[in-house]
């Protein structure tokens, strides 16, 4: 498979200015997204996975709340060099996003058809009739039955799964190169979650775009992603193909995560593995390796020196001293 790179994140850091001083929510994150793949970004709350995705779109206010460092290259151009006003041409057109809560992401007083048409008319300057045609096409594409009826309905008339489909239709209306899905199914039931995930996989193939899937659910990752980035406390601790992540995890954190979820094909008499302790707050980041205080294998070196993210094979990178030695 030839790989065409869409997006490259290089050494990205996002620092939030708060009353209690600066908080570095993500620290030196680098990864690439290729055309036609689904990249899973997993981690627990506070690991910075959502901050990463929102930073890619520069959604944080740069004057008052956040400061970005590093580069995000889209088609070889650094997103941070683009004037803020021109960002609108990228958001929704080249990179678009689907959020967790479809109900609050949709405007309740606008018909769904109008909401899908809006990006088309802004970005592609389509006429009313053309835009409507494309909207119907989009609704069909995301599997909404009777699209000519649904197009004139309001969000509250749709079920949760249908609303998330509409969100995806809006996101994909301008055929972006990259779709960022931020916990798209967390608020949905399993049967609906399965349908939405299948839809994303299907559209990813059909439209040949890149997808970043942000989730805390390893089972969803296992079923949909081709490559996985595991984040902990604002850093990438492991990056690998999905099979390597599950069969051959190198970082103790990845291993802990995988062992701590009950599996459908697992043995119910076997005690679940526990990662001890809790995720520290961002203003209490430990010295050395950030996972060291919770790591069962931590040595003195781990507690004082930060390991680098190093490639252990062409497809796997790990941030751990154990692997280096």
């Amino acid at each position: 498979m030839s790989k065409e790179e869409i997006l490259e994140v290089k050494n990205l850091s996002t620092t939030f200015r708060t009353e209690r001083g600066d908080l570095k929510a993500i620290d030196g994150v680098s990864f690439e997204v290729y055309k036609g793949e689904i990249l899973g970004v997993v981690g627990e709350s506070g690991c910075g996975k959502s901050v990463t995705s929102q930073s890619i779109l520069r959604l944080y206010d740069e004057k008052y709340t956040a400061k970005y460092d590093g580069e995000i290259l889209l088609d070889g151009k650094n997103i941070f060099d683009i004037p803020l006003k021109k960002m609108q041409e990228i958001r929704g057109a080249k990179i678009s996003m689907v959020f967790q809560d479809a109900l609050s992401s949709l405007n309740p007083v606008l018909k769904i058809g109008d909401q899908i048409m809006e990006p088309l008319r802004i970005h592609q300057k389509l006429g009313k009739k053309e835009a409507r045609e494309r909207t119907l096409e989009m609704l069909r594409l995301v599997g909404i039955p009777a699209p000519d009826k649904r197009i004139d309905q309001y969000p509250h008339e749709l079920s949760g799964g249908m609303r998330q489909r509409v969100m995806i239709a809006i996101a994909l209306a301008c055929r972006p190169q990259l779709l960022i899905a931020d916990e798209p199914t967390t608020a949905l039931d399993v049967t609906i979650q399965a349908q939405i995930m299948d839809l994303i996989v299907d559209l990813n193939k059909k439209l040949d775009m890149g997808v970043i899937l942000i989730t805390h659910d390893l089972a969803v990752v296992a079923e949909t992603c081709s490559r996985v980035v595991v984040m902990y406390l604002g850093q990438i601790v492991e990056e690998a193909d999905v099979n390597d992540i599950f069969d051959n995890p190198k970082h103790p954190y990845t291993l802990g995560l995988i062992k701590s979820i009950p599996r459908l094909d697992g043995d119910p008499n076997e005690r679940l593995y526990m990662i001890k302790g809790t995720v520290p707050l961002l203003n209490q980041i430990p010295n050395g390796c950030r996972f060291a205080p919770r790591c069962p294998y931590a040595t003195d070196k781990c507690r004082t020196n930060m390991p680098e993210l190093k490639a252990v094979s062409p497809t796997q990178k790990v941030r751990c001293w154990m692997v280096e030695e």
Partner: protein
Amino acid sequence: MEEKKVVLSSEHVSQFFPIKNGFGQVVNYVKAVDGVTLELHEGETYGLVGETGCGKSTLGRTLIRLLEPTEGNVVLNGEDISHLSEKEMRKYRKEVQMVFQDPYTSLNPRQKVGDILMEVLEIHGVKDKDERMEIAMKMLAKVGLRPEHFYRYPHEFSGGQRQRVGLARALILNPKVIICDEPVSALDVSIQAQIINLLQDLQKEDKLSYLFIAHDMSVVKYISDRIGVMYLGHLMEEAETEELFSNTLHPYAQALLSAVPNANPHEEKQRIVLEGDLPSPINPPTGCVFHTRCPYAKAICSEKIPVLKSVNEKHKVACLLYDKDLNPDAE
């Protein structure tokens, strides 16, 4: 099979919430739970699963008598507690307790953890303050918290620690039954495992019975001895865990289980996709409530209401496909 002691059961329990119009007249009912019969045995974990709106949480709240059942009976240790007043219920409260989903809203933000625990004892007549404190301290240790946590406010804790406090509050009266309403679904993956293990340890120690309400099938499969599947207020299938997963009978349960993702990238799954949306519990379909979305639905399914019947000693199902009495064509 040995006869197990039933600690808590519901007999044809229904919970209908009236919908009133502007003049206060009842115009319709939301049929949240409709004629559910289930038994919770001593020392077992009964997993209750189903999707949003299936009535599993409402059933849990009826069993603990936060709600009075519209029809049917709730029986605790052989005594009917369905229509006891709040005052009469008080002495039964010790027996059944509840752990809630959201650890952030389930603790009073203005009470210190110690006061939360001690108040429970005060309500139940432990007069001596030192005694209350001693019991509360022991409880904290039991759920893996430290004595200094006694003097802290809930907002100083992480989600997992709060859930431990919630557990301590439920356990402090030494109940026989704990109704766990999605106790781990708001927690991070690594914390989930801690709480699940804690629940299991406590169960072994105190012979607790759990009614474990959840939507995460992998967790339910891991923790439960028996599982009941609910859909639109009805119990569709009930079986021992292994039996349910190896021999799923009800078409809804089949679809539900096929949708559950597994953390195994090598597995290719055949999904059963359900057509259409969940019908409204205000006007549920006639006959079998699932017939509007069932891939095997026949004409008879919209006419006759299936009842939960045993197919073998470990397995009950409410489906006309397997019911020869109601449906002559059944297998």
